[in-house]
């Protein structure tokens, strides 16, 4: 039955309009959480405001639970949904570079878009910089060593691979542990905010 794009076979334009509506929801909740403001985002990494972690993991657990429940009820074919492919080393290095970019620039693309629309000048510069960085990447990636690294696949840990497939367990098992980690994380986050931001200064 789900995903509907496969069972109902609607037109591409319909899918694009759906994308737009989903995007409105995405942008709405990002801004509602205050993620249009770079200093609030940055405070995550000084343990003064753990909203980034809370929002991200609350979202991950919500979606993950929905996917697992729908799948186990036979309503969703997980083979038909897009699972990000695994490229270990480009994922590691790209992730680290993104982390550096995040703490230096205070934004990521999604939050920067929200910042732009709420008239944050620094967000505009972040988006311009982002496009510059992507331009540079596209110019460098055809070079043999970079292209090789970009496409490097690790034996046994590559392609379309989920954590439950990698561990050889049912999806719900991984889901359960992710939920435990999330709850432990939330408790730790509340503790950290109290400890490092005792006057509860909301950015």
């Amino acid at each position: 039955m789900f995903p509907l794009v496969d069972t109902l076979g609607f037109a591409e334009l319909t899918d694009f309009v759906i994308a737009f509506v989903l995007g409105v929801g995405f942008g709405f909740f990002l801004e509602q959480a205050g993620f249009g403001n770079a200093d609030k985002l940055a405070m995550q990494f000084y343990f003064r405001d753990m909203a980034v972690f809370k929002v991200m993991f609350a979202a991950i657990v919500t979606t993950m639970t929905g996917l697992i429940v729908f799948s186990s009820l036979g309503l969703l074919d997980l083979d038909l949904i897009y699972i990000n492919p695994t490229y270990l080393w480009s994922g590691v290095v790209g992730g680290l570079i993104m982390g550096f970019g995040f703490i230096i620039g205070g934004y990521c693309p999604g939050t920067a878009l929200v910042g732009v629309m709420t008239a944050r000048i620094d967000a505009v510069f972040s988006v311009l910089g982002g496009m510059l960085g992507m331009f540079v990447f596209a110019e460098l990636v055809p070079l043999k060593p970079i292209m090789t690294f970009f496409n490097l696949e690790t034996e046994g840990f590559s392609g379309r691979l989920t954590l439950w497939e990698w561990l050889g367990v049912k999806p719900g098992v991984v889901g359960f542990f992710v939920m435990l980690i999330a709850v432990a994380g939330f408790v730790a986050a509340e503790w950290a905010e109290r400890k490092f931001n005792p006057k509860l200064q909301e950015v």
Partner: protein
Amino acid sequence: MRTFQAKPSTYMNPYVAGIGLGLVLLLAYLISGRGLGASGALMRTVVQAEKVVSQEHVDNNFYLSKYGGDGQNPWHNWLVWEALGVLVGGLISGASAGRLHLELHRGPRITARQRLLYAMLGGALFGFGARLARGCTSGVALSGGATLAAGSWITMLCIFAGAYGLAWFVRKLWI
């Protein structure tokens, strides 16, 4: 220009916002069979601009031609429409919350000009890293994370590790 200030929060509770976001993301998978994203839309905008300057350059680059080679419109894409929605959603939320003001947010120890420079530098690093990792926090960490994609969790951890790892060294930017 506002910097760091203590005021009563008008922000939505982060757990509630997260659940809301998670439901939107779940709908994306249930309806369109895919998750959300952001950096891809910016990449396609870069390709669109490059096509105007030199279509030949785009055609001759294996990475760029995927998006805009030979008659392809890089903006004719699910993610681009979604990103437009993000812009509108952000605007609606900001307007309704009274957070629509020309502002620059920075730490108390740097100037506005420095903030803009670092915003651009950080953004550039982030953009580069995002394409190398085949997605950003939205497309990989959030969406890939929710589907428990193995590589996505690795990238997510590395994003946090990189940011936390460098935080102390760039603390002058924020605290």
